[in-house]
């Protein structure tokens, strides 16, 4: 019975993710338009800020330092708006029909979050291509790449689950957009995505230490840049993401059916 339940959970989770992948295959345009924003950050912001020699980037050039930060940022931006698709599916009958199937709610939520991870991986591939074109020095060792894949999927899943929770609480598209606009930039700026923690005023450093993005960026820099020294250690970065994801899925599991009411 136990193994049957686990199998049921995994099948439901992968099926929800599979539906998203199939949709992307039918219409991949979205994947390509989303590359514009990270490209602008790397090309324009990166070029200009690279001239400031005083940013303590831990022995790598600013452009190299920026690339993992921009990858983490673009994953955040993809995942944080994921909840709106759930509001959309609620407004149609899609969500009701899925919720009447015998699938554990947490599997449905985790499946949606994984689907955000798949989109984020497509984005990561394009950031890598862009970084190569710009001559940014990246590690291509297989274990490091596998680590990047894992962290990108975890990060996307965390912010997608968070976004689903917001959707379940606010329930309408308009409020969702408002709240998300309000949160996205602070999340981004209160992290080490575009400048190191060492440069921050102490109050901001405290805020950043509660932001999962800070640890995602730390892990991505460690894995992507040759010779970069992790601030917190990879085990801590990854462990924290798993704990945060588990907590968020637990909350979303409770809230998911209430979006119908």
């Amino acid at each position, binding site marked *: 019975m136990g193994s049957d339940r686990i199998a*049921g959970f995994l099948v*439901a989770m992968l099926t929800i993710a599979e539906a998203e992948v199939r949709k992307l295959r039918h219409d991949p345009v979205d994947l390509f338009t989303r590359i514009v924003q990270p490209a602008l950050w790397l090309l324009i912001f990166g070029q200009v800020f690279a001239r400031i020699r005083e940013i303590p980037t831990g022995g790598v050039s600013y452009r190299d330092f920026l690339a993992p930060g921009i990858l983490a940022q673009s994953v955040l931006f993809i995942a944080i708006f994921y909840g709106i698709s759930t509001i959309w599916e609620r407004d149609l*009958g*899609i969500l009701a029909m899925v919720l*009447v*199937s015998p699938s554990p709610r947490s599997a449905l939520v985790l499946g949606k979050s994984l689907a955000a991870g798949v989109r984020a991986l497509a984005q990561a591939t394009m950031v890598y291509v862009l970084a190569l074109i710009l001559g940014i020095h990246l590690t291509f060792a297989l274990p490091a790449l596998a680590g990047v894949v894992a962290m990108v999927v975890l990060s996307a899943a965390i912010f997608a689950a968070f976004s689903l929770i917001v959707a379940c609480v606010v329930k309408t598209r308009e409020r969702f957009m408002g709240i998300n606009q309000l949160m996205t930039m602070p999340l981004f700026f209160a992290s080490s995505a575009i400048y190191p923690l060492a440069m921050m005023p102490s109050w901001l450093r405290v805020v950043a230490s509660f932001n999962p993005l800070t640890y995602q960026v730390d892990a991505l820099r460690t894995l992507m840049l040759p010779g970069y020294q992790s601030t917190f250690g990879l085990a801590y970065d990854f462990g924290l993401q798993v704990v945060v994801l588990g907590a968020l899925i637990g909350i979303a599991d409770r809230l998911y059916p209430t979006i119908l009411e």
Partner: protein
Amino acid sequence: MVSAQPAVSVEHLTKRFRHAVAVDDVSFSVASGSAFGLLGRNGAGKSSTIKMLTTLSPLTAGRALVAGYDVATHAFDVRRHIGYVPQLQSADVDLTGYENLLIFAKLYRIPRDVRRERIEDALALMGLERVAHLLVRGYSGGMVRRLEIAQASLHHPAVLFLDEPTVGLDPVARRAVWARVKDLRARLGTTVFLTSHYMDEVSELCDQVAFLQDGRLVGLGTPADLCASAGPGADLDDVFVRLTTGSR
């Protein structure tokens, strides 16, 4: 096809929201293998009843058994034995018809070795073989509805809930949906529980009907009996008006 144990059995079912009572002490039962119509004006409590019976919304009071399981304590078992087609469009327009069915076949854990056969069977039963590999975005309203019924019945549920199944469809498409629902009943012995505003649909499909008004049950019986009790020459439309406007 009709067996002793009711497919749906509801006792003192009540749903209260903060400021209103949507369903007020309603009791009825639906014979296994039959088709049951829940009727009433907009806001009478039909959708609230369906939402409770499909485990989407908790009961405030009372008890409901669906396919032999208590919806409050055995929601998971209820879900394994029912199918539900909501009033609003519920097939995913960004997938093909086949993919919509494949996703549901997996969510309902239909074993891999029979999955393909079930899907092809369902497509044939709903007359969708030719469009199976096209995106649902291009389907007509009637095709979408038939696909949704296929999705909801892929796992051969004991009870199929249809919330206003032909709203917004043209007469030809409506008849096509009716024919498919009848085929489904004949083939699988599925109990059908539907809500509708169309009395012709109810006469065509239902063995028994119940009328709700302001959340309360105001009429229950076969369409023929209800018509007879409404007076000579009365049809279901007359029954509907009599029972749901309070001018009895």
